[in-house]
C-alpha cells in the first residue's frame, strides 16, 4: 500500500486508521531505505548511493545553493552541476570512457564536457594522419612528443609536431629528415 498523507480522517474508525497508519509507517521505512542507510540503523539518513533520475529542466538554485543532477543530452543521462543563483549549468560527464592501460588510444573527460584523448602510436611516418579519434569530437588542442630512437643523440632534432588539426584528425610532421624514417609518438588531444 502506498503512502497516504491524508490519514487519519477525523471520522475514521480506529480499526481502519490502524491499518492506514501502519501502512504509512511501512511506506516511509521502505521509501527512506532507497539510497539511504535505513531507519533504525547506526547510519540512518546517510547515503549508500545517489541514484539520479533525469530532470526535464535545470533546477533553480538560490544564492547559497548549488545543485547536482541528471539531465538527458541526446537522450543519454549525464551528470550536471549548477552553481548558485541559477548560473550556467556545467556538464560534468561524457557518456562513455575508455582508459584501458593496454589500449594504444584512450580517452576520458573533463567538465564542459571536453574529451581528453591520449595514446602512443608506433612507427609513425612523416605526414601520417592520426585519426579519426573516437568518439568523434572537434579537436581544440593537440600536442605531440616524440620517443627517442635507440641510436638518437642529444643533438638530434628529430621531433614531430601536429599539423592540419581539423575535425577529429591531425597530421604528424617531422622536423627535417630523419633516419630511420619512422618514430613512435605520444599525443594528447582535447575535443569538444
Amino acid at each position, binding site marked *: 500500500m502506498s503512502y497516504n498523507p491524508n490519514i487519519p480522517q477525523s471520522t475514521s474508525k480506529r480499526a481502519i486508521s490502524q491499518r492506514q497508519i501502519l501502512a504509512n509507517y511501512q511506506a516511509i521505512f521502505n521509501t527512506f531505505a532507497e539510497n539511504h542507510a535505513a531507519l533504525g540503523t547506526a547510519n540512518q539518513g546517510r547515503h549508500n548511493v545517489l541514484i539520479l533520475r533525469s530532470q526535464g529542466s535545470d533546477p533553480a538554485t538560490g544564492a547559497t545553493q548549488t545543485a547536482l543532477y541528471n539531465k538527458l543530452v541526446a537522450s*543519454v543521462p549525464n551528470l550536471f552541476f549548477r552553481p548558485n543563483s541559477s548560473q550556467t549549468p556545467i556538464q560534468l560527464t561524457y557518456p562513455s570512457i575508455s582508459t584501458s592501460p593496454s589500449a594504444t588510444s584512450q580517452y576520458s573527460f573533463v567538465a564542459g564536457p571536453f574529451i581528453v584523448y591520449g595514446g602512443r602510436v608506433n612507427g609513425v611516418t612523416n605526414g601520417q594522419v592520426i585519426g579519426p579519434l573516437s568518439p568523434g569530437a572537434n579537436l581544440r588542442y593537440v600536442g605531440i612528443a616524440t620517443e627517442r630512437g635507440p641510436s638518437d643523440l642529444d643533438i638530434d632534432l628529430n621531433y614531430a609536431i601536429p599539423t592540419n588539426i581539423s575535425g577529429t584528425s591531425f597530421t604528424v610532421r617531422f622536423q627535417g629528415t630523419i633516419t630511420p624514417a619512422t618514430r613512435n609518438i605520444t599525443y594528447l588531444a582535447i575535443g569538444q
Partner: protein
Amino acid sequence: MTIPPEENTPYNANIPRPTDDLASTQPNFLNNFFQLYEAFKKNHGALDAGATNEGNHTVVEMLEQPGSFQTDVGEISVYSKIVEGQTDQLFLRFQGNGTEVQVTNYQIYGPVALAGQIIYMSFLPGKLLCLFGSFFPPNLPDGKTIQLSPYIMNNIMAFNICASDVVGHVIPTYKILQNIPGINTSIQFFQLSPVGYFYFCIGNI
C-alpha cells in the same frame, strides 16, 4: 522539537498493532516521528527547516559500498567504494548497468620532486593520474630527467613538453624510464642547454 522519552528506541515500522489503544500507541507514534525527523535531517534540510530548505541536501555522506550499483535506463548512480592501494573513492555508473567509472583518485603518498622540479598532481575519471608542472634543472647529471612521483603509473597515456625560454631550447622528444618493474618512474628528455620547461603527463594507475 520535543525529545520523547524513547529517543534511543529505533524506528518501528510495525506499529500500531490492531489491539493497541491510543494511550499505549501514542509514545510509539511520537518515537517514530522523532526517529524519522532525526534520520531525515542527516544530509538533508530538516522537516521543519522551512519551505526553502526542507528536503534539500545539505551534504552527501557516502557510506562505503561492497559492490557496484545497478542503474536503469535514464539513471546515473554515484557511490563510494574502497580501492586497493587507495581509500574510499567516488564512482559513477552509466545508465542501464553501463560502464563503472572511478571518478576520484587519492594516494596516501604525495609527489616528491627533484631539485628544481615542481609537480602538481590531479586526476581524470577512469583511474588516470595527471602530473604536470615545471622544471628548471640545476646543473646536475640527472638534469634531463623528470620524476613521475608518486611511482604508480603503469602506462603513459600521453606526455607533452614545451620550453619556457624565448628560443625554445627543449626538443620535444622523450624516453620513458622504468626503474621499478612495470612502473614508469621518470621521463628523460633532451635539450640543447639547461633551460626551463613545462610538462604534462597522463598515465594509467
